[in-house]
């Protein structure tokens, strides 16, 4: 029969002293004051150095005080929380900075003129001009690319997950992985060499034709691997119990995929598509290579050169006119806004079929 000695029973303490809730905030405030104050008095250094100094002072002070008051384990906990918190702030800072800069600089030309006019006839001294032709171009090119890649990508993913048992499925996965790494300019070169130089002269009296459709093809090459991969992942996430439940009702396999598996995986598939769209909308090199760029409005993606918002931004940013930078910033704001809008709409549409409500 063993008995617990008083010593063993006393080593586990349930309660410990804790710092009051306001303590981390008070330490942070003090650190900021000291950091920024110290920097202004000392020579050189600006708000950035001050912020870094404040952060360091905060860490050291918090950990020291916590070790004295609360004990080693709690201090380590606070240190980890502080580190994670600052990592988050560091990660979000660039995003906020980009958003702020784009909005503040893009607001200048955010007027009706910008959205209704093109650059047709606008010289370097002319303050007007807009991006209607570029917006149209982006919407048409990305739209056609989506129409091509979503059915193709979904079909490929469905084959790999639901039907593929042999080598073909493995080859598809391999090549899709390779395609994910293709640089956008290479995709543009491919479409230039294949579609513009070889195929399009057949329909154009022997002369190569630059068009919005060619740009859409190049964008498709870039979008397809993302869509196939993310659709594949989401389809695999659907539990096999759901498929079995449907088969057990006597529902054929293709109907099960269409009515049970895909609706269940839909929110994830939509996210994958929107990621691909966001990337494609921002690609400049392929559009420049095969759509050629344009100043006037061209609503026909199959004939005649087109531009896109990303190419427009590049054009305006490299033009010598003093009015061009403002246009470039507004175009950037427009591009971000369009992608954001599309994403929100897509998420709302897909929300009806969430896996958990």
């Amino acid at each position, binding site marked *: 029969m063993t008995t617990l000695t008083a010593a063993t029973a006393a080593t586990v303490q349930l309660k410990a002293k804790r710092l009051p809730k306001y303590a981390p905030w008070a330490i942070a405030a003090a650190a900021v004051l000291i950091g920024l104050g110290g920097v202004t008095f000392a020579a050189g250094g600006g708000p950035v150095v001050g912020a870094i100094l404040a952060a360091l002072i905060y860490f050291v002070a918090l950990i020291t005080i916590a070790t004295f008051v609360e004990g080693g384990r709690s201090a380590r906990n606070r240190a980890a929380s502080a580190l994670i918190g600052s990592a988050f702030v560091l990660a979000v800072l660039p995003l906020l900075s980009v958003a702020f800069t784009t909005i503040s600089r893009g607001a200048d030309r955010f007027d009706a003129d910008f959205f209704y006019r093109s650059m047709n006839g606008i010289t370097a001294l002319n303050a007007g001009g807009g991006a209607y032709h570029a917006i149209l171009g982006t919407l048409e090119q990305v739209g056609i690319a989506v129409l091509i890649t979503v059915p193709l990508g979904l079909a490929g993913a469905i084959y790999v997950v639901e039907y593929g*048992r042999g080598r073909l499925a493995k080859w598809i996965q391999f090549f899709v992985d390779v395609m994910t790494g293709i640089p956008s300019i290479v995709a543009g070169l491919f479409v230039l060499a294949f579609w513009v130089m070889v195929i399009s002269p057949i329909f154009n009296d022997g002369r190569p034709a630059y068009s919005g459709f060619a740009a859409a093809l190049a964008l498709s090459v870039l979008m397809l691997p993302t869509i196939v991969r993310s659709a594949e992942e989401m389809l695999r996430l659907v*539990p096999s*119990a*759901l*498929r*079995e*439940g*449907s*088969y*057990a*009702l*006597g*529902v*054929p396999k293709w*109907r*099960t995929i269409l*009515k*049970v598996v895909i*609706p*269940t995986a*839909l929110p994830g598939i939509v996210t994958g598509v929107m990621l691909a769209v966001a990337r494609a909308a921002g690609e400049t090199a392929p559009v420049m290579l095969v759509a050629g760029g344009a100043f006037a409005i061209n609503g026909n993606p199959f004939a005649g050169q087109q531009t896109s918002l990303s190419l427009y931004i590049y054009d305006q940013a490299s033009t010598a006119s003093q009015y061009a930078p403002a246009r470039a910033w507004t175009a950037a704001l427009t591009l971000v806004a369009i992608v954001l809008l599309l994403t929100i709409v897509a998420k709302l549409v897909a929300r009806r*079929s*969430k*896996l*958990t*409500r």
Partner: protein
Amino acid sequence: MAKRIEADNVTAYYGSFKAIEGVNMVIERKSVTALIGPSGCGKSTFLRSINRMHEVIPNARVEGTISVDGENIYDKDVDVTAVRRMIGMVFQRPNPFPTMSIFDNVVAGLKLVGVRKKGELQVAAEQALRGANLWEEVKDRLDKPGAGLSGGQQQRLCIARAIAIEPQVVLMDEPCSALDPISTLAIEDLIGELKDSYTIVIVTHNMQQAARVSDRTAFFSLEKTGDPGRLVEYDDTQKIFTNPNEKRTEDYITGRFG
């Protein structure tokens, strides 16, 4: 009207692994048959081969014949989906379709094979839900998601879904093992009512449940691990649990092993 099932020398494989061998059994219509036995002896494998769900698993196959009212369902020209519409299944873990409402879940078997008329669907849904003893609990929230019910209700929803297509046979693979005693009782009562219209085969780990619910019981077992499972004894439930013929059956039901 329910159908009669005859299994003749059924052997099932997972790839090259033989899971069950030489099973011969006749299941009469409108009866409840329980399949019992230790884990891994092939009861679920045999159950799944009755409605041709075994072959859904890659590289799995079944040899031998299983006849339903005289027709061999493993014949070359047989349409698998027609077999499964005739022989329904309820699984161990409830699996309602998460993107569909309760109503859509119940009529899924009908909708997904082309029945469109709203009137027909509504009648079928109410009938099935009443049959599964779930109508009173969900009649006011038929458009709510199917996944928002408790475990016992979800399982009854799956049973309603299975009987909505009016099968001849209902197979149940340990339907109560994921449920609490009250829900289990509800489902056992349900089985008692369903047996008036369907042939039921139920796999269960719970011997008391087999004794309560079934007319005949089949005991499966294996000699040693790695061996294929075999049907050891198949008789009236009363006899199996009071005076079995085989020693192995007696050892199992008295708890000496398994």
